[in-house]
């Protein structure tokens, strides 16, 4: 199941684990990324807390935690090569995996059609 937030994140839901990244739209708006900082595994985060920081040539931006949960894995590949986020934002450019405190909370997120409408 693929869900989206109005903060331009996508979540791929598998059981109680959400793989989280930023949308192609967000990656395009940010421009060429040169730096990514990710949360460590084991970090518990509330919805809306700063989970990651991305920097383009021009500016720094925060990536927020889309739901309450605990970080179980971070994608070292985008730390090593931030350009992956620009080239494959909704695939190899994923950010982290979040073990959801309340898996039913995903129902409140946007589906793909609603997100496309948001950015149209």
């Amino acid at each position: 199941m693929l869900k989206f937030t109005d903060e331009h994140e996508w979540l791929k839901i598998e059981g109680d684990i959400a793989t989280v990244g930023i949308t192609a739209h967000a990656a395009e708006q940010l421009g060429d990324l040169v730096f990514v900082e990710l949360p460590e595994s084991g970090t518990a985060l509330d919805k809306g807390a700063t989970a990651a920081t991305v920097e383009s040539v021009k500016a720094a931006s925060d990536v927020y935690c889309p739901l309450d949960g605990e970080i179980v894995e971070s994608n070292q590949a985008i730390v090593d090569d931030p350009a992956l986020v620009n080239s494959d934002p909704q695939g190899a450019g994923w950010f982290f995996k979040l073990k959801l405190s309340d898996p039913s909370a995903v129902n409140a997120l946007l589906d793909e059609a609603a997100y496309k409408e948001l950015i149209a």
Partner: protein
Amino acid sequence: MNTDSPLKQTPLHALHVSLGARMVPFAGYDMPVQYPAGVMKEHLHTRSAAGLFDVSHMGQVILRPKSGRIEDAALALEKLVPVDILSLAEGRQRYALFTDDNGHILDDLMVANRGDHLFLVVNASCKEADFAHLQKHLGDTCELTLLDDRALIALQGPRAESVLAELWADIATMRFMDVAEAALHDVPCIISRSGYTGEDGFEISIPAASAEDVTRRILEHPDVMPIGLGARDSLRLEAGLCLYGNDIDTMTTPVEAGLEWAMQKARRAGGAREGGFPGAHVILRQFAEGAGRRRVGLKPEGKAPVRGGAPLFADAEGKVPAGTVTSGGFGPSADHPVAMGYVDKAHTANNTQLFAEVRGKYLPITVSALPFVTPTYKR
């Protein structure tokens, strides 16, 4: 600045939009921050081929001596800048600074001797204030005009000369900081061999009515790519050049900013026209004794960019303040983060290890010689 007023447009606005630029407000103008290629490619293209910038938002000012003698305009302008304008030969340009009574910097600018007048290019955000300042102090000796009917573009990079040589063969005879008049596509232009990227290149003043046509034709050349403000900033930062409002402002002096080179001998202590500019007592004293702080290059040791405003410390715990970053970002050509800022005089030596506070962490950052890339000016 009143942010409610509608954004102004340069004569090239429609061209930017047609090229797919992302437009942002800058100094009261709706300006391209990047084109579809993106900041990284635009930056690297400028250093490897040629990048074309719209800098029409900057102020172009003509200063014409009422006496008809250019020396009178030069001496009048010297009352406002710590720079030797009198010795500036016809067809030559020089960097200058307007200072205030405290020796602080009101703006930085370019001054060209165009034979019967001086031609000034000032920052967009300062142009009205600069013009009022000039009018107030030079109005009795000079006729002043803030041109609103000319665009200004820059073509920068190692291929800039060959691109323009196809339009005007003599361009190759120009040296760095020469200024000449020439027709490009039959349009009379004022061309200077200068820029804001650290690359060889040119700035071209074009009558507004013909600006889009001339610019489109230059962009047709396969070596040329349009470049937005994003890459303009990363290019000038790698080149160690100050951005007015960030790295120099009404809180900094030319000596603190490390711009002593812009003050020629004639205006320094013991020179033929020593002092005689606003804040001379402060600036000449700092010249002799040094200032308490100084602008330096800063190289973050990690991969994280360190942005303007980040506090600097002498220790990794953030206990001993050492200065502030004024500009910082990623340097696409340097291939690492680059920054500059002001540090207390105890910490100005190259290779001094400092720490920058970024998101609550103290990241190692090293005082480094500027620029981060080697300029390729054709002297």
